């Protein structure tokens, strides 16, 4: 099916906005200048959008296609927590729900729909007295645990630095309140290490990075100082079409002028120092640990785990969880998509054996997954 054709009306509507049209015209001019000056190594400008929310925004607005028509190609990055959560975690969560009696497994919605070995948590008949409960905010588990003292309550979560402070705060409160029937089954990721892995790996040529707006809200632009080493022009951007185009303009300026490598185009939300209170609670409760990523493998220090003082809050210890090295569904290339090596439509399962109704991998499940974005909106 020609998704590009389907998306035309939305894209045309986008470009009818005079602000957007003006910004796109400006972008074309600057791109041409950079190209003529020989400052672009390839035919197109290739930018990785690190964050899954940007992936969705780019596709939903039709901007991904409008950009590609003008020689700017976006490549999805690793910033989709549900997508990078390894299969072994889903496998063990399914096992807990199925086998463990009197358990409440609380989680954000997306993880429930990721299949492991063809089984999704939402479809598993829970053991006697057990249930799965969707929560909007992690702190809801405090009340669930206190109201149901005869149940073991587990918060299953995955997230980057945007989500980690809320989870760390909840862990801290659980510790202070001495709630004994509450544990945390977490896959908490840092954004720095996978970006370093991708930049070091060099599998994909990147001319710029669109940095994650809301991770930056927590860790600040200071959190991206490490990018200096690679000298990749980078901009922190907001989530509207206009915000994203402005971030691309900034990236083009950096390429043109060779000035500072990270600029903030989302100043009303992102400060240089981020949110110190949020970083304090993260650092108090959690410490860097080696963690497994789908598609990227084990990356040293790229995760966050409970410090020794709080180790009893870890569901892995309480329930003797040992994640098997489960391999993703046969033919699923989600891992390659997450490294920016492959575009979703290039996967043999895409749109055929793998659809939103019957997903084979997490990139088609997550509301921020690149495969889902491409399936729904083309580009």
């Amino acid at each position: 099916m020609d998704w590009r054709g389907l998306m035309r009306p939305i894209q045309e509507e986008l470009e009818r906005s005079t602000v957007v049209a003006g910004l796109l015209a400006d972008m074309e001019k600057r791109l041409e200048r950079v190209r003529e000056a020989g400052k672009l190594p390839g035919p197109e400008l290739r930018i990785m959008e690190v964050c899954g929310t940007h992936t969705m925004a780019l596709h939903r607005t039709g901007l991904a296609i409008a950009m590609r028509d003008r020689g700017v190609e976006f490549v999805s990055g690793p910033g989709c927590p549900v997508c990078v959560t390894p299969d072994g975690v889903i496998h063990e969560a399914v096992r807990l729900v199925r086998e463990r009696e009197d358990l409440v497994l609380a989680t954000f919605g997306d993880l429930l729909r990721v299949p492991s070995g063809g089984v999704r948590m939402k479809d598993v008949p829970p053991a006697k007295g057990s249930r799965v409960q969707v929560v909007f905010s992690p702190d809801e588990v405090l009340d669930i645990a206190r109201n149901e003292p005869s149940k073991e309550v587990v918060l299953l979560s995955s997230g980057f630095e945007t989500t980690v402070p809320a989870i760390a705060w909840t862990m801290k409160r659980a510790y202070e309140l001495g709630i004994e029937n509450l544990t945390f089954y977490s896959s908490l990721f840092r954004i720095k290490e996978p970006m370093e892995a991708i930049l070091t790996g060099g599998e994909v040529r990147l001319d710029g990075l669109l940095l994650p707006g809301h991770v930056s809200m927590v860790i600040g632009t200071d959190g991206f100082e490490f990018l200096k080493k690679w000298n990749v022009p980078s901009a922190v951007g907001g989530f509207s079409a206009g915000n994203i185009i402005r971030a691309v303009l900034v990236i083009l300026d950096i390429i043109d002028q060779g000035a500072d490598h990270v600029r903030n185009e989302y100043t009303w939300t992102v400060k240089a120092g981020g949110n110190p209170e949020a970083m304090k609670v993260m650092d108090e409760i959690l410490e860097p640990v080696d963690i497994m990523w789908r598609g990227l493998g084990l990356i040293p220090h790229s995760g966050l785990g409970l410090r020794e003082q709080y180790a009893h809050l870890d569901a892995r210890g309480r329930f003797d969880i040992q994640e098997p090295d489960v391999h993703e569904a046969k033919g699923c290339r989600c891992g390659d998509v997450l490294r920016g090596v492959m575009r979703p439509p290039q996967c043999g399962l895409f749109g055929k054996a793998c659809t939103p109704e019957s997903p084979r991998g997490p990139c088609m499940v997550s509301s921020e997954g690149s495969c889902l974005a491409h399936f729904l909106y083309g580009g």
Partner: protein
Amino acid sequence: MCLGIPGEVVVLNKDGTAEVQVKGVNVRTRVDLVPDVKLGDWVMMHTGFALQILDKEDALETLSLLEEAGLI
């Protein structure tokens, strides 16, 4: 997952929670991580926690742009 939603603090409770109004709907939000928050402030929320205090005009612009992008 990393979607942030801006809203206005319309009730500030003493227990670290607030009612944050988004498009006319009040959402219970923890404000422990933005200790300087005041009644009437605009905040960026994520998974039930306020994570940053915003400039009001910018927050309104963000909200309309998010709606335009179909993200909320």
